[in-house]
């Protein structure tokens, strides 16, 4: 009994004290566990249409099934897909996503009004699209409009890693220096809040590639 308590205590310390959970889950003190915490981003060619590209931004990681029904996007948080289409790591286009009253609103792609850390929502100049946010137990709601597809709502966390073993390996003086085989997926059975956009490649760039990253921003 005592030993197992110590072990649990050590595990909690490992989780809480151990800076960060990959991929970007709980990556920094200012955002850890909050509504603006980006867990992962993905960018890939559509499986349904070779002329389309798909962008995914996941926030709020490690949501248990019991907590998923109550999980929600934050109306004070703006999620911004940044697209650099000329190779200088400066955003040439943004797609802005922010929820209001059960809907996710999307603006863009459009040139940002300013580069840097602060944004305004380009609601008066950009193409606007909306999709009803899919609730936990509901069927998936997808909106197709202006050549683009949109989704917002809870999803299985697609990320997988034996994070706890990695933490053990980096912890000094515990005699653990290699991964297990097979490893254990620390993210199995957990959910995230997902925003998914599919759009024609021609809307993001005309070259061979683009650079993308996702920012989360809070209303001041």
């Amino acid at each position, binding site marked *: 009994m005592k030993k197992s308590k110590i072990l649990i205590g050590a595990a909690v310390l490992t989780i809480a004290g151990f*800076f*960060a959970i*990959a*991929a*970007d889950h709980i*990556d*920094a*003190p*200012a*955002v850890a566990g909050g509504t603006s*915490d*980006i867990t*992962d*981003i993905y960018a890939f*060619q559509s*499986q349904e249409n070779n002329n389309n590209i*798909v962008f*995914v931004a996941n926030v709020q990681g490690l949501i248990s099934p019991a907590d998923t029904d109550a999980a929600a996007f934050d109306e004070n948080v*703006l999620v911004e897909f940044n697209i650099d289409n000329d190779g200088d*790591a*400066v955003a040439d286009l943004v797609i802005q996503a*922010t929820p209001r*009253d059960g809907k996710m609103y999307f603006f863009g792609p459009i040139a940002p009004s300013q*580069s*840097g*850390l*602060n*944004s*305004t*929502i380009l*609601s008066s100049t950009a193409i606007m699209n909306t999709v009803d946010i899919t609730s936990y137990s509901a069927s998936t709601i997808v909106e197709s409009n202006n050549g683009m*597809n949109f989704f917002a709502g809870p*999803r*299985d966390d*697609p*990320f*997988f*890693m034996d994070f706890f073993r*990695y933490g053990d*390996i980096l912890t000094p003086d515990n005699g653990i*220096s*290699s*991964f297990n085989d097979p*490893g*254990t*997926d620390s993210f199995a*059975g957990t*959910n995230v809040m*997902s925003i*998914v956009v*599919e759009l024609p490649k021609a809307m993001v760039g005309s070259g*061979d*590639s*683009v*650079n993308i*990253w996702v920012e*989360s*921003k*809070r209303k*001041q």
Partner: protein
Amino acid sequence: MKFNNIKLAAIALLVSLSAYNCNNDDDNNVTGPTGPNFTGTYAQEDQMGRPAINTVFVDMADKNAFNTTIPSNQGAAFQSKFEARLLALNPGYTTNALTWDAPTFTGALATDVLTVSLTGTTTFFDGTNVLTGRALADDVISTELLLIFGGPMGTDNPGLSDDNVDGNDKTFLSSFPYLATPH
């Protein structure tokens, strides 16, 4: 007669003023409270390009700063710190499977953007294509471990170069939105 003219003029002025005011109020009522409010300034809290970069390469004291440094400034601010971190994780690092030495590898990683091909396969690594996107099923952590610990042939530190979790716990969808339904 003259007095009446003045009265008429005063009434006309009052009517026109109140009509203008009413009209103005009507406009406000129509456009003001309806529709969501998207005004205000939004300030950055988190950002991400490639998987696990902040987690693996950024020191605790710098994690918030890394999230609020725009990508075009990240290389200058963080490359040397990334290189020190890489050599702390793997003191024997020489080059990796991409033939990148430590400054080249960390220079590429410090600017944290995800390059996505518009002309071909999009994958973090599929055995042939490297860093051309990130698909849902890509084993990005094992790819990064291999590049950090695996050495030039990918054969060094075999206990560290793969976490032996090779796939997700739910099957991805073949149609939009591709991510699996929640647990």
